[in-house]
Structure formats: C-alpha cells, structure tokens
C-alpha cells in the first residue's frame, strides 16, 4: 500500500476558457498520493486566481470519467476540469 507521504504525478488537462486562463492545455503535477481532485484544483487557484470563480460551474473528470471533487488521485491519473459543455 502506498503511504500518505508518497508523492505521485498526475496529468492535468484544461479546455475552453480554463485553457486560456491557465495558458496551457496540459500539465503534469506532483501531489500526495490519494489527494482529492479538489486539492489539485485549489493548487491551480493559488497560481491562477482567475479560475476560482468558475469552480461552481466546472465538472471534474478522472481517467475520462466524470468524477466527484472528493475522488482521490493516484499515480498516472489523468484529470480534467470541464467547463459546461456546448457541443452539437
């Protein structure tokens, strides 16, 4: 079992206006194993305060599935913060 002190690397994807605010489509970050998606978002909120006001309209995903903000993250996970979708 991984210990809580272990650090893992996850891939983060940005789309739409979030991509414009953060200034990149893709990122790779380290965080404690098992940290929830919410924690990851909060880290970006520190470096990019403009994204915080969009939090209530975002849906998170983990490994191409919609996920709750409390979902724990592990090594190699792919996380995205999805603005309201407008395809079609």
């Amino acid at each position, binding site marked *: 079992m991984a210990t809580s002190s272990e650090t893992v690397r996850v891939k983060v*994807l940005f789309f739409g206006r979030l991509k414009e605010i953060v200034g990149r489509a893709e990122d790779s970050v380290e965080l404690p194993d098992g940290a929830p998606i919410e924690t990851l978002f909060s880290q970006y909120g520190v470096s990019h305060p403009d994204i915080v006001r969009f939090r209530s309209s975002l849906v998170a995903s983990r490994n191409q599935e919609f996920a709750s903000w409390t979902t724990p993250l592990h090594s190699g996970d792919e996380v995205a913060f999805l603005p309201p979708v*407008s395809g079609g």
Partner: protein
Amino acid sequence: MNNSLQSDLFALVHEPIEQDALIRHVRAAEDGAVVTFDGCVRNHSLGRRTLYLDYEAYESMALAKIREIAVQMHEKYPIHLVAIAHRLGRLQIGETSVFIAVSSPHRPAAFDACRFAIDTLKRTVPIWKKEYFEDGAVWADGEMPPAPLETRTAKPAS
C-alpha cells in the same frame, strides 16, 4: 432486438463530415427507416451576428461518451445501427458540426433514438464551442454534465 453496437460508427473529424457515408453505414436491407440529424452553424446567437465557430474537444473522453450514448440508444429503442460524427476546429456559417444517423426496422424508434442522441450529446459530451462575433468572441453558454456527488469506489491505480 438487434444490438449492433460493434457495427456502429463514431468519429471526431477535422474535415467536413461525410454525411452520405454515415447514412450508407447505417442503411440495411432489414431497415424501413433512416432518421438523420444535421446540426449546422447558425448565423446568429442571442441577437448577435455570428461570424464563425471554433470547436474543441477532450477527444478521448468525447469518443467514449458518444459510444455510451449509442449503448443507451440500443438499450432504450429497437433500432439497428447508429453513426455519430462531430466536427472540430473552425466551422463557417451553414457547415455541419454534428451529424447523427439511426436506422431501424420501423420509423418511431429511429426518430426517438435520434432525438435522444442529440439531446444527450449536448449535455454529456466534453466538446466546447467558441463563438466569434464582429465585436469579440465568447465561449458558448453550455450545460453542466451530470457528475457524481460522492466518491465512487476508486479503481486501483494502474
């Protein structure tokens, strides 16, 4: 009931959608109906004149979600085959952004399933459009996909 998911067709394309190919794909001798939906770029949005649109997608997830829609279509309606294509990149007024074709032995199922497909696509598939106007551009107001409120049992990390 035919469950022909393995024969269904899903695509995200950066070139014009080949609508005839999608129709040919779903059309079969045992079907009495092919219903299609052609979603095209409108020249106005909320009273402003639209110049063009840029579409982008979380492509791997979008394809997976489109496939899920087809699974649901087969579960809910007695249809035969499904073809769904969404275009990405810059689209001009009048161009087709999404095209759906559904075949069924009898027409009610194909009509109902096609309507279900476009309505569900617009709510659940991670695709975004930016609308360009004469005086600026905005990301279109979208819909929040239904997401789980609680953590599900996490799959083991790979």
